[in-house]
């Protein structure tokens, strides 16, 4: 289409997988490779007076969320849900994900992140870490992962975490907002996601179990200890560094903003399962959808929201992070995020409802 001016052209190129997007991807991937696998940024951090490259990364990350957050707050200023949610996510990043760990270290306390939980923050339930923490932090680790997170997931859906608290979601929904439409909506991508995310969850649970067993047995099982150590190293390399960092954030300009959250994050997998049993759902206003597809286009999790909306089907999808953008972009106000008092399970899977739902449901025409 027409794009007046160089800046408009550049912006479009960046957000539609043009050369600029590829260039940015290359830069981001290079950044993450240098960050995770080299000491390139250590002297940079030291020269800025920061204690490590991770502090530098945390600072950059927080700045990206703040700058993106200001942009998003302006863009969606008419939508109170977006304003409240974005403000919270910015606050959590600044306070819990950046400042408090630094302050704790200053007071010779453990560098502890209250906004992350197992299994996303894997070491939170790693016995050789958690059992050496002061009691308060250890209790928080266990209760947070095993009680608090799932409980809030039942009441509010996974959104309480994935789009209100988590830094990964925070970056996606602030700095990444202009790239959210790039997530694939195909049914193939959905199939892949269902396998991959639960596979990562299974691996992380297995690894945690092994860590506990190995910790319990101690020096009595040196082979297991070695195996577990290697397993842990591979997990850190593959899942933490590669999938959450290089792929998850590096490929934003090509694959959309939630590659990690959608396909790999074990925390999202747990909360997704909880969400299916809980109260959260997206309610569809009956017979109001005009099938325009903006909801699907701007779903960062690749959910074909339109398929539900045009079939008058309220729904709860495990992957939905409740960012609320489908409801925001809908030009007919068809969608509303809700914590329903009664659980309303989907009648059928997407494959079954599209596109025959209206024909299969009781006809409005009263054939006689």
């Amino acid at each position, binding site marked *: 289409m027409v794009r007046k001016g160089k800046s408009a052209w550049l912006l479009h190129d960046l957000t539609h997988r043009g050369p600029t997007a590829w260039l940015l991807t290359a830069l981001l991937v290079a950044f993450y490779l240098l960050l995770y696998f080299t000491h390139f940024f250590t002297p940079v951090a030291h020269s800025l007076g920061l204690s490590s490259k991770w502090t530098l990364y945390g600072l950059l990350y927080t700045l990206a969320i703040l700058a993106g957050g200001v942009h998003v707050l302006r863009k969606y200023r008419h939508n*109170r849900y977006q304003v409240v949610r974005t403000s919270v996510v910015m606050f959590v990043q600044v306070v819990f994900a950046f400042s408090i760990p630094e302050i704790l270290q200053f007071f010779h306390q453990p560098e502890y992140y209250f906004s992350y939980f197992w299994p996303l923050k894997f070491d939170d339930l790693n016995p050789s870490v958690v059992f050496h923490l002061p009691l308060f932090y250890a209790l928080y680790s266990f209760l947070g992962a095993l009680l608090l997170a799932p409980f809030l997931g039942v009441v509010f859906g996974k959104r309480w975490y994935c789009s209100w608290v988590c830094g990964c979601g925070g970056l996606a929904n602030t700095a990444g907002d202009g790239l959210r439409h790039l997530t694939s909506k195909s049914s193939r991508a959905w199939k892949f996601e269902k396998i991959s995310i639960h596979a990562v969850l299974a691996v992380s649970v297995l690894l945690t179990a092994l860590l506990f067993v190995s910790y319990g047995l101690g020096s009595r099982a040196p082979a297991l200890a070695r195996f577990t150590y290697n397993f842990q190293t591979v997990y850190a390399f593959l899942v933490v560094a590669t999938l959450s960092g290089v792929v998850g954030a590096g490929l934003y300009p090509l694959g959309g903003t939630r590659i990690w959250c959608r396909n790999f994050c074990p925390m999202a997998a747990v909360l997704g399962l909880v969400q299916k049993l809980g109260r959260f759902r997206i309610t569809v206003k009956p017979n109001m959808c005009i099938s*325009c597809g903006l909801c699907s286009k701007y779903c960062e999790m690749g959910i074909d929201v339109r398929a539900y909306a045009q079939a008058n089907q309220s729904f709860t999808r495990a992957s939905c992070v409740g960012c609320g953008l489908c409801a925001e972009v809908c030009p007919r106000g068809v969608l509303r995020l809700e914590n329903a008092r009664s659980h309303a399970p989907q009648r059928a899977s997407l494959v079954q409802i599209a596109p025959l739902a209206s024909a299969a449901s009781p006809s409005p025409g009263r054939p006689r």
Partner: protein
Amino acid sequence: MRYVIIGNGVAGVTAAFTLRARDAAAEILLLSGESDYFFSRTALMYAFMDRMSLRDLEPYERHVYAEQNIRLVRDWVTNLDASRRLLTLQSGSSLAYDRLLLATGSLGDAPDWPGLDHVREGAVHFVTLQDLQRAESLARTTREAVVVGGGLIGVELVECLVYHRQKVTFLVRAPWYWPGALAREEAEIVSEHIRRHGVDLRMDEEVAEVLAAPEGRVRAVRTKSGHEYSCQLLGIAIGVSPQIAWLRGVKTPPSLGRGIQVSSSFQTSLENVWATGDCAEFSANGQSLVEQIWYSARRQGELAALAMLGHQVRYDLPIFYNSAKFFEIEYTATGEISPSLPGAQTFFCRLPGREASVRITERAGSIIGVNMLGARWDHSIFERWIAEQRDMDYAISHLAEAQFDVEFGRVDLASVSGAYREWRARSAGTGSPS
């Protein structure tokens, strides 16, 4: 049994899927000259505004048609011979049918403005995919645009052109914007909003003449008030009419009026031929009725398919509802919403601090229409109240049930009940019926 459907818009596609759901063995052919695949016509503006690609406008993944065993044919129909149950296509081939459904939709109305026939380039409608392509190709070389017609398509086209940073003049013949659906106070909210987007919105303006440059590109529009508005693009959005011109020349034309005349079970005057959606014309109580909105097309498509399958179908006009969006202002209408209804009383109030309003109309103690601007409402609740003949007191005190705003964003209804009490007191004071 071979079903042939002409037109792959929402009426035709809904009919095709309904046929398939009820008859697994039928042969179903879906014809379109406009597009390879069904797309959401209501979303044309989002393609023009770069928010969607054309592919994004397709409501179903393409493999669905093969899975449902619905054959898609891209061609225009040039002849219909109902005596031989045969169609002739523009490509030259013929196509036999057992049962035929005409779902050809609407086209933008062509006005008879003097000078328009000299315009070879620059005048566009905004209804079809081809209209979109024309508008897109013109946008490149347009600095100033004029859009004529104070309805929904007009404002959508205006929004697109504003997005492309054109200087837009919006000419409306009526004294206020969209008087068929909006009261003057509502139109003021909408007009102010449109103007705040930099649009030069002019009421009471009628086109007198269209002026073309020597090479044929539109150059300006002169109105009956004597103003001349320079433009390189002229958007014509004065209404739509059933696409039936092609039927006038065929071997066996069905009975035509404003649209293709059908019975309440969608049957045309020809045997084994039905019509549905925008192009169908019903007669109810001696009045001719053509429904041209997305929702009615979808509903009619489903019912026409049932009729073709041999079900006894009677299309009763349902309670009207519609929705729209004027730039950022959302709009929901249910029931009778014309601002001047005889024997009716209307309560109207603006919501403080927002571009939003509530209008409820009551007749003989029952509400008959609800017209809402600026907030989100569930029209199906209003439909129920109208069907249940609830009165205005009930509607006002239960308004919260119909709210559909985002979390944290619900409009405050206290001001509505306050305004309503005042209004009641006033109308009691003047002795009008309560």
